């Protein structure tokens, strides 16, 4: 199993950590942009042959969104919106390839973590966010590299099937 709700949920979690350094209004607007964009893309149909590119985009976005937590400066409003738009596109694309569109309902609520994350940052607990971001980056790098393996990954049928 490669798709499903998990990659999309991880992207939403990374976005939530990234939005923690944005202004409250921009973060809320970003969450709205994420929901609208993800729903719009998820209802469309994406060819199965694009699967590798879509997952690579999803994992790259997870890395980029989580890496923002380590940036010394706060996120500007337009940057927060651009990040949300990007996350929405890839979340929707991954769900469009998933067996069930209902997976979107499991993934999107994870983005609500932006609210407690922003509070944690304001209270000087940014360290926790940095540690969580490093976990997400670790998972995303593994997910991205998996598709470049010379061996047949476990989620694909092989000659033994």
């Amino acid at each position, binding site marked *: *199993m*490669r798709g*499903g*709700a*998990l*990659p999309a*949920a*991880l992207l939403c*979690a990374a976005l939530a950590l990234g939005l923690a350094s944005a202004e409250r209004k921009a973060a809320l607007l970003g969450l709205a942009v994420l929901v609208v964009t993800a729903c719009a893309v998820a209802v469309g149909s994406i060819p199965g042959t694009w699967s590798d590119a879509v997952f690579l985009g999803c994992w790259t976005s997870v890395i980029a969104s989580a890496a923002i937590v380590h940036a010394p400066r706060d996120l500007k409003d337009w940057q927060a919106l651009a990040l949300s738009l990007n996350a929405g596109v890839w979340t929707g694309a991954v769900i469009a390839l998933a*067996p069930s569109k209902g997976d979107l309902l*499991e*993934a999107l*609520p*994870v983005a*609500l*973590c932006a*609210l*407690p994350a922003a*509070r944690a940052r304001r209270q000087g607990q940014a*360290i926790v966010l*940095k*540690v*969580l971001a*490093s*976990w997400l*980056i*670790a*998972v995303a*790098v*593994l*997910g991205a*590299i*998996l598709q470049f*393996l*010379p*061996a*047949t*990954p*476990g*989620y694909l*049928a*092989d000659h*033994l*099937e």
Partner: protein
Amino acid sequence: MKRMRHMRRTAPELAGTRREGRSARRRAADRLVLAIVSTMAFGVARVTPAYAHMGTGLPGGFESGFRHPVSGWDHLLAMVLVGIWGAFLGRPLIYVLPVIFPVMMVGGAVLGMFSVPVPPVELGVAMSVLVLGLCVGLAIDPPVWAAGTIVATFAVFHGYAHGVELPSAADPVGYSVGFVLTTGLLHAFGVGIGLLTARPKGILVTRGLGAAVALAGGWYLCLALGL
């Protein structure tokens, strides 16, 4: 008049109470969001590999990955020690070590996924238990770069062991989430133990633990060398 005086006196207090009330409500809302999201995230991560082929690969995703770091004492002790040592050394290493470890573990996992030959993994893992145990037991306080390098080197061996299994996992993303999450939780547990050093006899407890783990590391090393 008496009532007015009472109101004047209590107005700032009332404002303060209102602020506290708002703050408490926000905290409660945050906790609620976290509880809902973590429950859902756990549900998402626990998805069974029903869509995957079950004939080959690891049967489980998240659960296999979650169990993997705690399935052997050598892995478990090394990861807890990273947290203890980080807390022992204080800022910035208290968070730098738990950040370095998963990132370098990924480097090791990639080597394992591509089957790049490295020195025997069992030897590296046993050495990590021994060296980290000695660092805590002897209260070694190296520069930040040196502590980071030690932890990063050992993280590669631990990651390699995970990476070898990853490609055959039916749900590799769930497996990755599981093992990274367990690793992080073990670090956090270690940091919790390491924070005992702030207490009067806490430093003796943590150093004693470090020494005990170093002995265990010596035993693992003997096993790895076939002695």
